[in-house]
């Protein structure tokens, strides 16, 4: 049974393409918790002064922008933290295995496609397996989808044997 949780469109939390896997979510969660702690401390120490936002990562910025969250707002921060925790624990994981290590742009592109077409909060784990030659192998919670060249060769094996036999017969 997948841990994926279907949320209503209104309350659905989105993950930016920069957040690829569960480790990225964990890192972002730690960062937002630190920011929350820093802003809360500021609010307690200097309640009359406006809050100074500490330096944040690009992933956090994209997350805030995507989900339209005001970081100075305590409630929205708490909602972001809760959403990230939930995503970390319940978001479905997709493992994509390539023959070579993909560039970050390609990985982000694929993550974006998956979240747009399959699940908005899907987390992706990138794997490496040179034996597949090319293409990729996608492992969803319950299935394995083999889009590799090795699979293509295997599927075309009968045709290849037929072609070889025909070539031998011609000789």
């Amino acid at each position, binding site marked *: 049974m997948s841990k994926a949780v279907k949320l209503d469109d209104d309350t659905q939390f989105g993950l930016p393409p920069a957040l690829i896997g569960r480790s990225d979510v964990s890192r972002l969660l730690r960062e937002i918790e630190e920011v929350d702690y820093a802003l809360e401390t500021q609010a307690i120490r200097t309640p009359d002064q406006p809050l100074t936002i500490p330096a944040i990562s690009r992933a956090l910025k994209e997350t805030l922008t995507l989900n339209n969250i005001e970081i100075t707002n305590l409630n929205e921060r708490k909602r972001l933290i809760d959403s990230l925790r939930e995503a970390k624990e319940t978001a479905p994981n997709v493992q994509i295995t390539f023959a070579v290590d993909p560039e970050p742009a390609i990985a982000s592109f694929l993550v974006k496609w998956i979240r747009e077409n399959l699940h908005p909060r899907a987390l992706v784990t990138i794997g490496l397996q040179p034996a597949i030659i090319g293409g990729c192998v996608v492992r969803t919670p319950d299935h394995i989808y083999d*889009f590799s*060249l090795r699979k293509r060769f295997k599927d075309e094996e009968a045709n290849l044997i037929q072609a070889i036999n025909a070539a031998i017969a011609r000789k």
Partner: protein
Amino acid sequence: MNTTMLLIIGGAAIGVVLIIAAVVLATSGKGKDKKAAPKSKKELAESYEKMMQDDVYHIFSKEFHEELRNKARLDFQKVISENAMFLQQDLRLTTSEINEYLKKEVSGKLEEEFAAYQQSIKDVQQAAVESLNKTVAAAQEQQLALAQKMKQDTEAEKAQIIAQFEANMAEIVSHYVVKTVGQQIDLKDQMPFILREMEAQKEPMRRDMWL
């Protein structure tokens, strides 16, 4: 051969007897000429007749004796020569007969031996030919069997190799592609293919994600 030898020996014996007789005749007349006395014709005739009866050799002089000896010697030589001639003729005849006989015998023997030799050669040749034929037939059978065995083995090995090749076709092609292109396949170039495949499987994947 024996007849000839007997003739030679007989001739030689006759010659010896004649010589001895001539010598005895020559010596027996000595010392009897001393009684020469004048006698009448009648007495002389009687005396001569008596002498002739007693000793025939007193009527011949020494010259006549010598002449007789010579004549006898010549006759003897003639006899000897004739005998020798006969002997020679006999010898030649015998030799020629012996030669003919030997030639005939030796030729016959040789022909027999040659015939036997040829027969034995023929037998040996026949046996060798039969043996060779058997050997050739056996070699041909063995060659045929070996060729069939080799053909079967080759066919079996070929079938095994083909089966193994077909069974591992994907791995072989994959290995070949990996070895030839390796890391040179750009992931960016593969994206259309990956997206096309994922698009094709989008619905099942989506259902799987929302379980």
